[in-house]
């Protein structure tokens, strides 16, 4: 099974990750796969009507992570009629313009405050750290048998006013115990 077409697909427009993760390890980094996943997840998420204006879908990356570099690959790619716009932000940045917020493992200590700040905003929070989902991050990536999987905190999604397709929920591990949220 050749991996080259996959890489080509990945870097052109489609961000398909339909190849084996085992092969991906050598070709696509976990963070690249995660970036593709973010791209796909965004297709299953519905933002409130007032936030759908504009032709940009801003992805904010908070903290230091190899994901930040992979996320840059998304910039300019079309997603559901809009195109990605990638911003690297820090703890103090204004997050209200973000539609998707990636919180790196380095921000684990600030997680509670960040989440509390955007509690009332329809911002899809994404992470790739263990326990993030339980702590209130809506979509959290983890590895299982060399493959990237995701867990979804359905309560957090419901509270945010976002809507995630049941098809996506079907693929993900659902976390219903938001220990991180009071």
């Amino acid at each position: 099974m050749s991996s080259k077409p996959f890489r080509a697909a990945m870097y052109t427009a489609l961000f398909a990750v339909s190849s084996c993760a085992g092969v991906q390890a050598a070709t696509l980094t976990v963070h690249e796969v995660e970036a593709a996943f973010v791209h796909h997840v965004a297709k299953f998420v519905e933002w409130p009507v007032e936030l759908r204006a504009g032709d940009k879908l801003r992805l904010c990356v908070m903290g230091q992570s190899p994901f930040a570099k992979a996320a840059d690959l998304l910039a300019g790619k079309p997603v559901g009629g809009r195109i990605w716009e990638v911003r690297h932000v820090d703890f103090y940045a204004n997050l209200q313009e973000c539609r998707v917020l990636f919180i790196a493992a380095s921000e684990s200590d600030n997680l509670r405050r960040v989440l509390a700040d955007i509690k009332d905003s329809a911002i899809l929070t994404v992470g790739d750290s263990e326990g993030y989902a339980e702590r209130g991050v809506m979509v959290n990536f983890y590895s299982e048998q060399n493959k990237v999987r995701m867990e979804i905190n359905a309560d957090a999604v419901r509270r945010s006013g976002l809507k995630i397709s049941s098809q996506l929920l079907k693929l993900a591990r659902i976390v219903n115990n938001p220990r991180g949220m009071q």
Partner: protein
Amino acid sequence: MNLLDWFRDAPIKRKLVLVGLLMPAVALLVVSLILTAKDVFEWRGRTVSELTSYAKVIGSNAAPALLFDDRIAAIETLSALSVRPDIVHAVIYDRNGNVFAVYDNRSTHRDYSPAIEPGEHLFTLDYLAISHAIHFKNDTLGSIYIESNLRGLYAGILRSVGLIFLTAFGVFLLAAVLFARLQKIILAPIVDMSGAMRRVISEQDFAVRVAFQGKDEVGALAETFNVMLEHIHQRDAELMEHREHLEEQVAQRTAGLTEAQRIAHLGSFDWNVVSGALQWTAEHFRLWGLEPYAVMPDYELFRQGLHPDDAARVEEALQQALHGGRPYDCEHRVLARWQHASYPRPRRGDLRRCRASGQDDRNGAGHHRIQAGRTGHAHRRYRIREPGRHHDRGSRWPHRPGQRRLYPSDRLQRRGGDRTDARHAPVRPAG
């Protein structure tokens, strides 16, 4: 051609059965076949469309799994196909045509899957395979291949076709029953008429009549037939009556003739010279001194009755009549050698004078017949005196106009007078 001949010669009942049953049978068969064909196509189309729907739904459900590279989810999605036992095999291919997830429910494992492009389907005798592209948000993620066995299709077609043919058969039975009832209306008068005609021919019974019902052509035919029979019957009856009457008349005439001959002592004979058949009237027998019809007359008997002196002349006259074309007209004496009850007792060797005339009637077959040979009554010159019976004065026995009177019997009678003193008159030569 032979079939046409056979049909033409077949009994009308068979024709009717053929027309009445074969035609609906053929029509029903054709209709059934058309419906069957339509059904087969419809079932095929329905199966394809059903399978396509499954492919669309499953493909749509498997799209996220493809996106997120989740084979287990894809396999779970495919396993939903187990609600349809007909679906024996399904594969989800990724966008590069590599197998992503497989569902297998078939007992006989086949290693290959037919290569069909997405959107196409393949019908074989034992399976239907369709392929459908998996789209997600304007993006083609791969394709799904579904293979179904055709048991459901065949069972459905069988049910449907069975129903069609059962219905057709029912309709045919109904038609047959109706036909059996109705054909009698057409056929019975014809059969009746045919039987009546046969009876007329075999029994010569013109009193037969056909009972006709209805005012159609057959009814008209039966009526005409009856009228015709009536006419024949009438004519036959008239003919019978005429014939009976005729026989009666002939009997009367014959009796009258015989009586006339007896009174006139005038006999006649009818001689067919070819066959030798000789017929004498009763009076002729008597003239020859014989009991009427006691013996079969023949030429020898005739000759024996001739006076020996006249025999040659008579024979010559006969020959001339036969060959010379001259009418037979000859006078001769008769030697009545036998007694006869109806005559006054004759003497042995009694002589009678006879004159015979006749004509040769040659018919087309070359028969020579001396007919109406009127043998003159016996001029028993001295013996027969029966006033008022014959030989009144001046009356001659029949002769042709202008013919010379040969035998003035009145004179002879006057001269003779005595019955007991009979003498033979001298024979005058004829002519």
